[in-house]
């Protein structure tokens, strides 16, 4: 008998521990709680801003509570998907424009017009909003936007005998500048890289490479979202990537964060980044404010220096009427001059996506972004496809094949075409 009692006790304890996590969550009653998935809370520099957003928003809306859902940048989408799979959907995801098609395909993202007011949505630049469209409906709403901008180090330009107020405008000019810049050493005798273009195996590097293809007047996808790389601009861009590697100008296989690190430490003279990447530079070296300037994306081949639109955006989830109304209030609260003014001035240099915010003091007088400002009018829209991450990773593989793999550009493009067409069709 004793043995049976012991056994039942063990089984009961085990069952309790196994099934305790499976209890269903009670539906919210009365006050509304909004679940906001936000990786930025785990990144240095951004946490105080978002914590203040919560305090200010809850003070203005006492019936709404913000509950953060956090995970590192590379894991937040999986976190959101896993939660949704368990019946616990977040209300909004703060993320990159490239996350939108995947989340639409997953059935998680809702059309923004289903949740936000007509007047609020109509205040956004139509071309910007078009960048978020899937089958004619926008599925994300940007907080701010930016093309890939060219950041350069004015001090290194001066040391190399170059005019720090005259950044290169074309790839040919850049190569002649790079020849001088690559002769420099930093204070510790380390090599100074002349030009940084990310090629590491992460989707954002693929987006950056797409921007480079646009610089050369090329395209990666056609308007229908089909692979369209048989163009001179595409070939020229990857020939340039190879040339930069052969000349030793570009740090091999680097992520954007590696480039930011090298730039902050004075070991990289120029590099392409999203405008908000400067916050990463500044968090490593606060003195970077004094030597950093921005320039327009370079013109190459027959291109006019067009670039790819990048945005930090809110991707909205439909969780019923009460939470939709609260979500609309939250989005309108955040994407406002009042909330974003200091953020865009002190943390994240970028361009507002709303017409009513165009004359914001923090944007108009932003010294870091001044040089790149004309490029804002030359952004090009990339067609949205559900497998955009696959395509971006294949672009990284192509860049690595022609650089560290030392393979022929034309042959590598042929291989890329075969692989990428299979990967994006799956």
């Amino acid at each position: 008998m004793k043995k049976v009692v012991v056994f039942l006790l063990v089984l009961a304890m085990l069952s309790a521990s196994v099934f305790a996590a499976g209890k269903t969550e009670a539906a919210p009653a009365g006050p509304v709680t909004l679940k906001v998935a936000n990786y930025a809370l785990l990144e240095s520099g951004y946490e105080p801003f978002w914590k203040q957003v919560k305090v200010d928003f809850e003070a203005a809306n006492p019936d709404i509570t913000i509950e953060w859902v956090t995970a590192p940048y590379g894991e937040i989408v999986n976190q959101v998907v896993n939660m949704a799979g368990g019946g616990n959907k977040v209300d909004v995801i703060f993320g990159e424009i490239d996350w939108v098609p995947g989340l639409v395909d997953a059935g998680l993202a809702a059309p923004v017009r289903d949740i936000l007011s007509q007047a609020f949505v109509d205040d956004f630049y139509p071309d910007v909003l078009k960048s978020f469209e899937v089958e004619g409906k926008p599925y994300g709403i940007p907080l701010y936007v930016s093309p890939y901008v060219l950041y350069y180090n004015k001090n290194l330009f001066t040391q190399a005998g170059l005019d720090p107020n005259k950044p290169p405008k074309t790839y040919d000019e850049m190569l002649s500048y790079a020849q001088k810049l690559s002769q420099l050493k930093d204070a510790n005798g380390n090599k100074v890289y002349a030009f940084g273009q990310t090629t590491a195996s992460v989707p954002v590097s693929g987006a950056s490479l797409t921007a480079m293809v646009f610089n050369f007047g090329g395209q990666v996808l056609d308007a229908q979202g089909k692979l369209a790389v048989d163009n001179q601009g595409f070939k020229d861009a990857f020939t340039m990537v190879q040339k930069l590697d052969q000349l030793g100008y570009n740090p091999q296989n680097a992520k954007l964060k590696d480039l930011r690190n090298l730039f902050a430490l004075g070991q990289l003279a120029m590099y392409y980044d999203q405008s908000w990447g400067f916050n990463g530079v500044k968090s490593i070296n606060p003195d970077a404010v004094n030597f950093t300037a921005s320039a327009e994306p370079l013109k190459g081949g027959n291109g006019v220096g067009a670039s790819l639109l990048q945005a930090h955006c809110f991707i909205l989830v439909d969780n019923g009427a009460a939470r939709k109304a609260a979500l609309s209030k939250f989005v309108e609260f955040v994407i406002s001059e009042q909330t974003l003014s200091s953020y865009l001035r002190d943390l994240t240099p970028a361009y507002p996506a709303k017409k009513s915010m165009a004359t914001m003091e923090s944007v108009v007088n932003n010294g870091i972004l001044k040089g790149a400002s004309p490029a804002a009018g030359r952004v090009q829209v990339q067609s949205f496809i559900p497998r955009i991450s696959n395509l971006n990773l294949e672009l990284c593989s192509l860049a690595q094949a022609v650089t560290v793999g030392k393979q022929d550009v034309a042959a590598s493009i042929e291989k890329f075409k075969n692989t990428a067409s299979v990967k994006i069709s799956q």
Partner: protein
Amino acid sequence: MKSRTLKRTRADFLFSFLLDVPALLMTVLFIIVPIVDSVIKSFQDYGVRNIISGKPGVWNDFANYLYLAKTDAFTMASIHTFSFVLGVVLLQFMLSLVLSLILNTEIKGARLLRSVMMTPWVVPTVISALIWMWLFQPQYGFIKYLVDLVTFGNVKDFAVLNNPQTALAGVGIAALWKQIPLMSLLLLAGLQNVPQEINEAAMIDGAGKFRRFVSVTLPYLSPVIKVSISMAIIENFKQFPLFWTMTGGGPNNATTTLAVLSYREAFVSMNLGSGAAITTLWMLMMVLVVFFYNRIFRVQDLG
């Protein structure tokens, strides 16, 4: 009396079975069910949309497996995985055996060395990966500095993880650093169980050091060797955190193993069906490798 003994035996059997039930339940719930579920999904069109909507996957006529055959990604990932397992396990065994033989002698500071040696093993794998990533860092890494120093400045751009020819070896070095301590410890435990009287008898019979090692030590050590190599094969076959943290599968897919490929398919491309197809084939390969390894070892035992 006999009937009472029989009753008692049956009661003991029942009780031991009941005690096994929680373990059986856990095994079925957390190992068997997920494996079967994964195999089923590998034959279905199953994506994130299915998880969120709760809709079951749809049979897709082996499309996930046919998709793997359309590019060389799966073949290359299999080659990388087998090369990695073979290289790391062989080196790991040889280095661990040497280390354990040294530690089994009466050298000064052996106890301290044993404690220090265990440090890499207790470091979490992701932290190990970060340590080695920084050591191999191409601009300011210690290894780059060391190579620069040793070659008197002739090799300036030594970047192990950026070169498709050396990246797999770079991750292998990190794996060896992390795994050698455990295997050494297991082999050391085995060595300490080799009966000294047999060794002494062999010595009296005129056997030299090498002869005693081959004819006495190794046969006594073989059960430990078998288990520790099995563990090493499995550990490296499913190695993921080192690759994902150190190289992400690059450069130019040179370190894309089956683990990396399945993760990419399932959680980057959000295609759980093809991710499951890779996992299924990967699991089959691992089962076959361990099966043949065990058979070879059994034959050797009999010999």
